[in-house]
């Protein structure tokens, strides 16, 4: 028994079988299931480290006909991450009122689907899992049915369904050209294709689908709506930004690796990654709602990850930097979203400018939040700082290295703005949106989970070398991430960010808000079309 299938089926089965139980029992059952799941994923993680990649074809079908599941270094890491994350999130949420059975069922269902995505080795299976997770997520983000969330859910649903149609047609083209949908077989057959141009259309169709899932440039319109939906539960935002979007990026990497023997792609997606990162920070710094700011910052970090994944050949330092950044960003962004949820709950407002003095009012949460902020702006010794160093490592002495510095300056600027929430005097905001709960502090349980995540962001950096060795079996020298030169660059970046915020961004915010134009659904659809056209055109011109 290799334990690949149980990790997918355990949460789904428990969620479905126990659904008739009373709420409290059901919650207990799911928590027990999550504890078992953590054991399963950790065991899988260890098995892959000691015994190498695992591959099974379900129900003893021959290779290429049956659905294959496979776990390698990368996917077992992400599966382990998903296992631990969902346990933490369920624990975090145990006392929330909206945690009824349907919510919990959908939540653990999403875990099964995401783990399925990480383990799946079959293009059509991936399509089915993506489509199902789209439906589950759309219900989850609309769960507290108030305000704008239904519109956000509708936009999310339509963009993602359209992208899935692209993927389905692309699967048709791939199957017509190669006669298989199994990724391992595809890679072998692609290497033998006489005329690589025949693959371009299929690739760009599938890539448009995956590109929407991983929120690339022109395709990320849905992400801030879904992840930053003002009234979506904090744990949902944390899971979406932490794990779900990483599934898209993971598939992006798998596809690139599968197709790159036939089609030249890396330069194109390097540029796309930069554009994603730059537009992401550009939009993040002008947001005035706490969660939208975090959501747009996710877009920019995705851009950085894509830059890392495509900057060097497979297996180069920057690729592993990109993958490591996926993990670090998952922890940091989940932490920030959870803190944001608590802050919004206690202060009763979603506006950044109305929240001040978090450190004084909620010291533990404030501290964790500060750790998260330091992490995401790439402070040396923090996990995200190390992974950003590796992403840049593949590009040293290269004009794009400056691009990364620019993105990091934008991120610092954004989080200088975000960090203002920590300081000052806590006051009851004049305009209370939802009716805050000023008397209540988050309970000890919630605080512990947030502080654990905060510590994890720091520890991942301090022990970067053993962590990378454990996760990816790679022996690297991470000490360059906190060399004097890096620290100097970091200090200059922060100083510039503070000055820019003080003298440029803060005065201009009101003006920017006035001239901004609403983005309609047709714009998102046009974005998908343009991305598809550009990918196809690039494929034909470069090939």
């Amino acid at each position, binding site marked *: 028994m290799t334990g690949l299938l149980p990790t997918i089926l355990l949460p789904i089965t428990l969620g479905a079988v126990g659904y008739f139980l009373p709420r409290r029992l059901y919650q207990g059952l799911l928590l027990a299931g999550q504890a078992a799941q953590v054991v399963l994923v950790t065991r899988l993680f260890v098995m892959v480290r000691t015994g190498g990649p695992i591959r099974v074809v379900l129900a003893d079908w021959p290779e290429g006909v049956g659905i294959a599941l496979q776990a390698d270094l990368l996917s077992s890491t992400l599966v382990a991450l998903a296992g631990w994350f969902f346990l933490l999130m369920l624990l975090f949420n145990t006392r929330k009122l909206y945690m009824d059975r349907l919510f919990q069922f959908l939540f653990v269902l999403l875990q099964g689907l995401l783990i399925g995505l990480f383990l799946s080795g079959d293009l059509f299976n991936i399509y089915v899992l993506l489509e199902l997770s789209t439906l589950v997520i759309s219900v989850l983000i609309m769960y507290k049915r108030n305000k704008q969330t239904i*519109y956000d859910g509708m936009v999310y649903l339509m963009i993602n369904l359209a992208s899935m149609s692209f993927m389905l047609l692309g699967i048709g083209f791939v*199957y017509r050209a190669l006669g298989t949908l199994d990724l391992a077989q595809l890679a072998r057959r692609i290497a033998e294709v006489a005329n690589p141009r025949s693959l371009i259309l299929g690739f760009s169709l599938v890539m448009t689908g995956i590109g929407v899932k991983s929120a690339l440039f022109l395709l990320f319109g849905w992400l801030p709506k879904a992840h930053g939906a003002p009234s979506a539960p904090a744990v949902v935002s944390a899971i979406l930004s932490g794990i779900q979007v990483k599934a898209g990026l993971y598939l992006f990497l798998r596809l690139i690796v599968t197709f790159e023997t036939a089609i030249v792609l890396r330069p194109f997606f390097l540029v796309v990654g930069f554009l994603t990162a730059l537009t992401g920070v550009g939009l993040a710094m002008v947001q005035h709602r706490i969660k939208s700011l975090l959501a747009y910052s996710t877009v920019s970090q995705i851009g950085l990850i894509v830059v890392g994944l495509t900057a060097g050949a497979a297996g180069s330092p920057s690729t592993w930097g990109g993958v490591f950044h996926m993990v670090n960003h998952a922890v940091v962004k989940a932490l920030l979203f959870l803190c944001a949820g608590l802050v919004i709950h206690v202060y009763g407002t979603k506006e950044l400018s109305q929240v001040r003095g978090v450190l004084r009012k909620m010291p533990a949460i404030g501290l964790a939040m500060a750790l998260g902020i330091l992490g995401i702006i790439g402070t040396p010794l923090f996990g995200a700082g190390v992974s950003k160093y590796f992403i840049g490592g593949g590009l040293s002495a290269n004009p794009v290295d400056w691009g990364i510095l620019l993105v990091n300056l934008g991120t610092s600027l954004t989080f200088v703005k975000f960090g203002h929430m920590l300081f000052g005097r806590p006051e009851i905001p004049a305009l209370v949106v939802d009716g805050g709960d000023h008397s209540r502090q988050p309970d000890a349980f919630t605080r512990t989970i947030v502080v654990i995540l905060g510590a994890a962001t720091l520890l991942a950096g301090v022990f970067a070398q053993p962590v990378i060795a454990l996760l990816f079996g790679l022996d690297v020298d991470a000490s360059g991430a906190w060399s004097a030169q890096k620290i100097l660059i970091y200090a200059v970046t922060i100083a510039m960010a503070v000055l820019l915020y003080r003298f440029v961004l803060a005065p201009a915010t009101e003006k920017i808000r006035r001239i901004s134009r609403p983005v309609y659904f047709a714009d998102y659809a046009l974005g998908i*079309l343009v991305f598809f056209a550009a990918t196809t055109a690039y494929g034909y011109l470069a090939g």
Partner: protein
Amino acid sequence: MPSLSELLSAQNVSILLFFVGLLGLVTQKNIVRTIISVNVMDVGAILFLITVNYTPGSLPPIAPMGDGPVADPLPQALMITAIVIGIAVSAVSLAVFIALFRRYGSADWETVLKRIRER
């Protein structure tokens, strides 16, 4: 010059359907039409996969059958799944649309957004 029936092969029709749906997605401002457009795209993709890998004169891969023409069964088996998912997806989209319509009283993307911003 290919004849009309050659031009209207199932594959060409399916690709045409897909892009008609895409055109609808970009141009239509009504939410119901957007849902229909996505459906049309989906149908186009499904039709494409059903007709893919039909080679005239090929032999059945599993068991002996009658004398009729035979196509690769795998995509067809996959498409049953895709059709079922398509139904679920349409149902969810329409349900969300109903909730949206009840709240904002409009089926127009721009009007809905305008009403959200006014509140």
